[in-house]
């Protein structure tokens, strides 16, 4: 039943997409360069810094979402997610060095993006309260620590997984579980702190306890949407079809629905607490977001980030229907980018977004997307598309455990 590729439509001809990453990189790179020059001339690189931050946070959250799926796979000893594990590992390893390199402009443009970097902690109590992190050295040290931990986690999870392909030794599985075990705790902490330090700190006066959870739910959301699309394409091309049965897409769809709900839940919880407490030091963040076209964006997010995907994903059968879910996944990408914009940009444009600059974040997204897609494809092509000796590989293929036992006994008997 697992090999029922006969039900699949014929493989897609992807050859004309082959040059897309390079083209995205070139077009995006040109837009970035023009944007940087114009932004330098007009507003001292503020616009460029914020646009770059938005694009960085987009791919960064995607890679973190993939890393989360890899660790949860090992921690829960799951069978169904064997097929998606390998390319999730590749997505996670984008964190280092590539996303770390793409982070450098943010660090260098820090004073243009983060207002607190230009303020004196001796006169500003809000900055003084956040010392020693809110110093330039503290910012670099914390960022280096985050990337160090993600480098360790993503590279080790990928390394032992590839070693498992060669040896199939039980020790590989143990190592993978070891890194996932402490990794998930380190992941929760670093994800929270990085979301606060890089995104929330654009409005340095503001604070929110649930910000990390909210950022995490969006990471998992965009990660799952990306994984769904990649898995659907790879199954259609018969690359991971043996280990990706139809109902595994149902599981992905359920998770996607769950995180649609969870991210709305955390976002609303944040809003509700701020609304209810009614304290000026918190409410200003939402008051800015009710001005100008930020108000319109808030409504787009309420309906587009939650209600539309929620009701589309709700029916049972639809979760396995690529024709519905792939457009939803692309929609999720758009909504996630808008949500990041909603978090980042009002610090720069408190009276509404200036649409004449809208091509700049798009250019940054294109450039980074093209670059990271090239890196991802290179990694994907260099290794087997799914783990070759995962202990649950046969389970993922839908081979009965009894058959496995009979076969191993027959083999053992033959060897004797």
């Amino acid at each position, binding site marked *: 039943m697992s090999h029922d590729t006969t039900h699949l439509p014929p493989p897609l001809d992807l050859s004309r997409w082959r040059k897309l990453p390079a083209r995205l990189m070139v077009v995006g790179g040109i837009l970035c360069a023009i944007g940087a020059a114009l932004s330098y001339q007009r507003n001292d690189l503020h616009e460029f810094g914020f646009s770059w931050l938005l694009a960085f946070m987009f791919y960064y959250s995607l890679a973190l979402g993939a890393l989360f799926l890899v660790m949860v796979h090992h921690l829960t000893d799951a069978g169904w997610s064997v097929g998606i594990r390998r390319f999730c590992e590749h997505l996670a390893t984008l964190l280092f060095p590539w996303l770390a390199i793409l982070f450098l402009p943010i660090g260098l443009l820090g004073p243009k993006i983060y207002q607190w970097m230009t303020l004196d902690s001796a006169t500003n109590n809000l900055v003084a309260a956040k010392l020693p992190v809110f110093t330039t050295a503290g910012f670099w040290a914390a960022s280096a620590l985050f990337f160090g931990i993600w480098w360790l986690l993503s590279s080790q999870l990928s390394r032992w997984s590839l070693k498992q392909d060669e040896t199939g030794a039980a020790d590989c599985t143990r190592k993978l579980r070891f890194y996932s075990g402490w990794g998930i705790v380190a992941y929760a902490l670093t994800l929270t702190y990085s979301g606060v330090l890089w995104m929330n700190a654009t409005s340095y006066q503001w604070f929110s306890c649930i910000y990390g959870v909210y950022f995490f739910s969006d990471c998992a959301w965009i990660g799952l949407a990306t994984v769904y699309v990649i898995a659907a394409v790879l199954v259609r091309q018969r690359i991971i079809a043996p280990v990706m049965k139809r109902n595994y897409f149902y599981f992905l769809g359920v998770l996607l629905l769950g995180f649609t709900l969870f991210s709305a839940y955390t976002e*609303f919880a944040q*809003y*509700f607490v701020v*609304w*209810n407490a*009614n304290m000026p030091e918190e409410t200003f963040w939402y008051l800015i977001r009710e001005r100008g076209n930020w108000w319109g964006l808030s409504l787009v997010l309420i309906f587009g980030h939650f209600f539309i995907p929620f009701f589309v994903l709700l*029916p*049972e*059968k639809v979760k396995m229907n690529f024709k519905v879910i792939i457009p939803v996944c692309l929609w999720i990408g758009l909504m996630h980018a808008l949500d990041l914009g909603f978090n980042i940009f009002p610090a720069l444009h408190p009276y509404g977004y200036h649409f004449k600059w809208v091509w700049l974040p798009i250019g940054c997204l294109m450039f980074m997307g093209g670059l990271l897609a090239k890196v991802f494809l290179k990694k994907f092509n260099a290794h087997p598309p799914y783990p070759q000796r995962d202990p649950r590989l046969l389970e993922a293929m839908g081979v009965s455990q009894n058959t496995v036992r009979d076969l191993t006994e027959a083999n053992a008997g033959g060897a004797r």
Partner: protein
Amino acid sequence: MSEKLYGISAEFDSPAAILRAAKKVRDAGYRRWDAFTPFPVHGMDQVMQLGNSLVGWVSLAMGAGAFASVVGLLWFTNAFDYPLIVGGKPMFSVPMTFVPSYIMLIMGGAIGALVGMLGLNQLPRLHHPLLDHKRFDLVSRDKFILVIGAQDEKFCATETRKLLEGIGGAHVALVEDHD
């Protein structure tokens, strides 16, 4: 006491046998029939052409109703019947209503699921004609029983019996309704 016919039952020995039989019954054009098995038989829902249960819709309706009624209640008490300022908040506002309404949505949805399930199964009931059938107890042991209802448009005591015997059913028997 009228004695009506409830249907005709036939016994099978394995999941595969009843699945094969069910396909033939379906292909013969019967619509009011059911299969009773000791455990779920994979693929039976497809053979029986069972869609999704309607319980979800009952649950949705009850949940939405509960949500709307709590929003209405909060508006009526706080903003209409006895306007009361609490913590400098507006008399009526969406964030204010959300938490209690959401909780009642969950309760309404849960009650809807329970009531909908019972209602669609026509439960509770004190008796069912199949319970009079002596061999019916075996479906909770090792037999697979297929019953074609007498209310089916195609039902005919002789023809249906012939069909069930023809597809390998053992102990084909009439089930009577003593109501």
